[in-house]
């Protein structure tokens, strides 16, 4: 129960401190100060998690509390905080071009707080509160380049759909409360399994609305429409936050709600998830292939990657000895978070030097911005699942899970095949960018200055991709323990 509370104190404290410091100094403090405060706050939060994690006692009891302090929450909060740290560090240089750094960083910390609370939330109402705490600052961050019509447009579109999905979620929660008399996930699940059959249509409606509501942030097709616009219009650092962090927080909720709860409904929902997975990754990859702007390409790529994670959710109930599907979800959340953040931060680095970068302006980038181009190459290869980068391992786990599920359901093997074919296909557009950067002649020659701060962040992120690719075992085992925690929780509430 304690960790989420501590983290709330630290992150909210940091966010307020930035605003106070700005007000006290009357804007005279060093421009970069808010950036350092927010980076420091996030790092302190990560440190806090690791400090608490050393003590072995994790309560796995089902209580009426609104948070569950378990390894799943720890895992996802580390993922989202790590991405937030990358974003905060890269924003120090990037935000200089936009200004209003205090507001930016304060919003960033509130988003981080929302995501962390979401990772731990065990009550549907708490989920809604955390969901809004996460979402509202991102609407503003998306529109942060307020003189740029694209940015404003993206923000408004994102806001409209976001508000709509919150409405949908609230309605779903009210339906659950109607059926179960509680919004606590564990209590509700126990109540729902004794549901009279005539209430089944309401249950189906509730579940479908939950899928749609969460699916918006998880970027599941057909709830993905806002993503390309938002990622293109938002500052690239914010796009990194959206695709690498808030999406992962949504998956954390999805794991908590669906993996724990859905097996108790008498519904065949895994097939629907499998279909969503195939649709999401296929549409994402095909659309990515035709893009002319790199942010849009990465947006569709990010949709496709969500499809791979959905494979894990779909096959999670068919795991035999180890919850390998669930491990895949967590593992890929981590690897994809780091890779996608790296890619978008590299885009931010480029857009600092080339205004309005099209895909053509990446030609010959290998000579013009060598470090940025190299780290972007690593990130793209990782996203394509090229060994020995970390993206390979997480996809391997997801596809193995699907192959294993083939023993239980007929579509398991086909799902794996669809995933592998999509991976092979996706290399087409990732490699195309790499080819442009290293083989094609630049539109205009000349070395571009690479910002020191951004370069440092990019190198650190690329090193994470490479090192966790060569030594994937620690992350895998962490994901395994976290998955065991949630699946044991699922059995704890299961009828005996």
């Amino acid at each position, binding site marked *: 129960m304690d960790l989420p509370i501590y983290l709330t104190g630290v992150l909210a404290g940091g966010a307020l401190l930035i605003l106070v410091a700005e007000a006290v100094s009357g804007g005279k403090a060093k421009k970069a100060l808010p950036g350092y405060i927010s980076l420091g706050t996030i790092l302190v939060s990560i440190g806090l998690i690791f400090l608490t994690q050393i003590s072995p006692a994790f309560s796995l009891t089902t209580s009426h509390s609104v948070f569950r302090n378990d390894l799943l929450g720890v895992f996802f909060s580390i993922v989202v905080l790590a991405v937030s740290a990358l974003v905060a560090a890269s924003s120090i240089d990037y935000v200089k071009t936009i200004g209003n750094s205090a507001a930016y960083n304060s919003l960033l910390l509130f988003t981080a707080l929302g995501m962390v609370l979401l990772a731990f939330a065990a009550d549907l109402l708490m989920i809604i509160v955390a969901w809004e705490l996460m979402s509202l600052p991102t609407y503003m961050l998306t529109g942060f380049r*307020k003189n740029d*019509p*694209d940015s*404003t*447009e993206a923000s*408004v*579109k994102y806001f*409209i*759909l976001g508000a*709509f*999905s919150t409405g949908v979620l609230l309605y779903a929660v009210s339906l659950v409360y109607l059926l179960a008399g509680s919004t606590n996930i564990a209590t509700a699940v126990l109540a729902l399994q004794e549901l009279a059959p005539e209430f089944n249509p309401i249950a*189906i409606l509730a579940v*479908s*609305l939950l899928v*749609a509501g969460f*699916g918006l942030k998880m970027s599941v097709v*057909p*709830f993905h*429409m806002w993503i*390309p616009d938002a990622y*293109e*219009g938002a500052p690239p650092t914010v796009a990194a936050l959206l695709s690498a962090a808030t999406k992962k927080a949504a998956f954390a909720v999805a794991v908590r709600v669906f993996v724990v709860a859905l097996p108790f409904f*008498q*519904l*065949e*929902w895994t*097939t*629907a998830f499998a*279909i*969503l997975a195939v649709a999401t990754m296929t549409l994402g990859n095909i*659309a990515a*292939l*035709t*893009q*002319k702007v790199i942010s849009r390409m990465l947006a569709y790529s990010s949709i496709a990657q969500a499809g791979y994670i959905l494979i894990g959710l779909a096959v999670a109930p068919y795991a035999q000895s180890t919850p390998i599907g669930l491990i895949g979800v967590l593992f890929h959340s981590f690897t994809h978070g780091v890779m996608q953040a790296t890619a978008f931060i590299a885009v931010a680095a480029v857009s600092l030097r080339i205004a309005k970068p099209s895909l053509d302006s990446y030609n010959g980038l290998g000579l013009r911005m060598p470090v940025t181009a190299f780290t972007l190459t690593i990130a793209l290869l990782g996203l394509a699942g*090229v*060994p*020995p980068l970390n993206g390979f*391992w997480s996809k*391997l*786990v997801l*596809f*193995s899970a699907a*192959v*294993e599920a*083939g023993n239980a359901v007929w579509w398991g*093997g086909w799902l794996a095949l669809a995933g*592998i074919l999509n991976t*092979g296909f996706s*290399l087409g557009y990732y*490699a195309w960018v790499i*080819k442009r950067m290293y*083989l*094609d*002649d630049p539109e205009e020659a000349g070395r571009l200055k690479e910002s020191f701060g951004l370069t440092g962040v990019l190198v650190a992120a690329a090193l994470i991709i490479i090192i966790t690719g060569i030594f*994937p*075992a620690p992350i*895998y*085992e962490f994901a*395994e323990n976290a998955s065991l925690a949630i699946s044991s929780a699922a059995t704890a509430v299961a009828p005996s």
Partner: protein
Amino acid sequence: MYMATEITPLTFATLTPWLVWFVPMLAAILIPLIAKAGDKVRDYFAVIFSLISALLAASLLPAALGGQVIHHQVNWIPSLKITAGVLADPLAVLMANVVAWISFLIMVYSLGYMKGEANLTRYWFFMNFFIGSMLLIVLSDNFLQLFFGWEGVGLASYGLISFWNRDEEKRWVGTPGHTAWGVPQAYSPTHAGMKAFVTTRIGDISFLIGILILYSVAGTFDFVHLAEDKQWASTLASMGLLIPVGILIFGGAIGKSAQFPLHEWLPDAMAGPTAVSALIHAATMVKAGVFLVARVGPIFFVAASSIGVTGFFEVIAWIGVITAFLAATQAMVAKEVKKVLAYSTVSQIGYMMLGMGVAGLAANFAAGYVAGFFHLTSHAIFKAALFMGAGALIHATGTKYMNEMGGLRKTMGITYISMLLAAAGLAGIPLFSGFWSKDAILGATLSAEHTASAIPLTILAAATVFITAFYTVRMIGMIFHGEPSHHIKEMEKNGHHLHEAPRVMWLPYAILAVATLAIGLAGPFYEGVLHSIAGSSLENVFGMHVVEEGFKVNPVALGISLIGVAVGAFPAYRYYIARTADPSSLVSRGFLASLYKFLENRWYIDAFYYRVFVYPVATFSTILFKVFETGVIDRISGSAASSSIVLSSVGNWIDVNVIDGFANGTAAAGTMFSRTARKIQSGIAEQYVFIFVVGIIIVILAVLTLR
């Protein structure tokens, strides 16, 4: 019981196999940094690191020849039972030495061949990265790690085929203007690179699916485990998946080794620098498929000995022999010297696959296995020599077409002698290396008793012997004999005097040419050695019982190959060396003319692939692009620029179609949002919400119908 199952402790000896592949990898990483110290330093650094790797590989030889196996393993992801390790059994060590030493010689040759080219840092990076990945394939002790190297060599191959990324006309492969079935038969280096990448990728996907299924049943990727604990084979067999899984894995080999039906990328890969063609597309990478079969074959053979997997080996043998014949016929009519060699490579790898295939169709597995591997080593040596020689010729004459050469034996004596020796190996002239190895494959095919198709396999293989002799003599004759061509005379007239290649170039291929002769002279002895070490590999690693068998020649096979060589070489000698008859009159009309065209157009397979796979996909993505970015749906989801175009064109429509609701609410957000709001009113955001709602309905329907 089996030595290899014991994990050897970490000593210097066990560290060596790790270093063999790690050293070139390290060199690749360091080269961009070393390049700062100057071009010369960089070039020699790259070559010296490949020498270190070759020396390390050589240091493994004594133990391997003594039948010892080094197997070292570390945990990688313990909870998934995934390990990393090296397995230096005699097969791997021998292969590693072939790869490392030929690599080193070609790196030396590159010093001369690539002199003065731009972007050499990229060249050396990819060359070292390739060598490291290839050695990783060879020394891996499990499928997963092997797959890492497998992807690595694919990437390096792509990078090096398209090395001349400016796509200048002179770098193209094929004859510009020539079309088959409306498909242009000339490709730029970057196109060829992409073609190679995509085609081999098809095989890779098949391979990955195969090993994932295997892993999900066996719970391990480890070769030794798979050979030991054979439970997985019966489980797979009971699911009816045993042979499909074998064939899926073999699919990887088909792609990488350019076997039918994934063979079309290799001839066009000749757009890369010749040193690359020699290393990757002749001597090493394309052998990775054969090596994979050499690794997998025994595992399947042993694990499924009670179930029977002849179907699997039957497929390998047939793919091999069809490819051998198909590619050889195309080599007969090729005009570019590198393409003759490329078709010939595809064809000869087909032989190796045939050897590996018939191994599993005979009582004595070792016969075909050793024959296939023997041919792999001898082919690697003579084909690398031929390619490097061809590179020297192209360098000297400035043309890739053989009919623009001619009479070069006087001016380029060393190259002539070297290529003649190597070509003798390729043609299978007695007492040269190729003679023995080809003979061994024919012999093994004839004695494959567990199949009904031994005779047809032998007939196709024998026909290929005859064709091989023909095109080899044709190549030598067209380049070195007869009178100098018009092109050469023009060059001489303009003051370009032809001269021998520099020593840094001819020395590597002269060494390999002599090796071809040496292996040929020691043929029976060499085969005996191979047999005993391959035998010990099979016994120690895979627990297979191998019949001890001395060197023996199958008289029927010997007769077939001697007659084949003589019958093939004689007309070629008349047409191209003695030049007592003109071959062009022969193919000017009638059946032979259409046959010539058929062969020249690569049996129309390449054109067929473009028509059926490439063009439709290209059309499809153009349509998609139109739909997504510039077409109808752009009103929903468009990039800023194209949206504004649409916006103005539908401006009128907006005015009369202002939809109330939240669009109005947002419009009230103020003038700052004016442009945005107009867009929302244009229906964009409504459509998003509409699709969202449709999505919810779809999910509900899906849950309802699938319950």
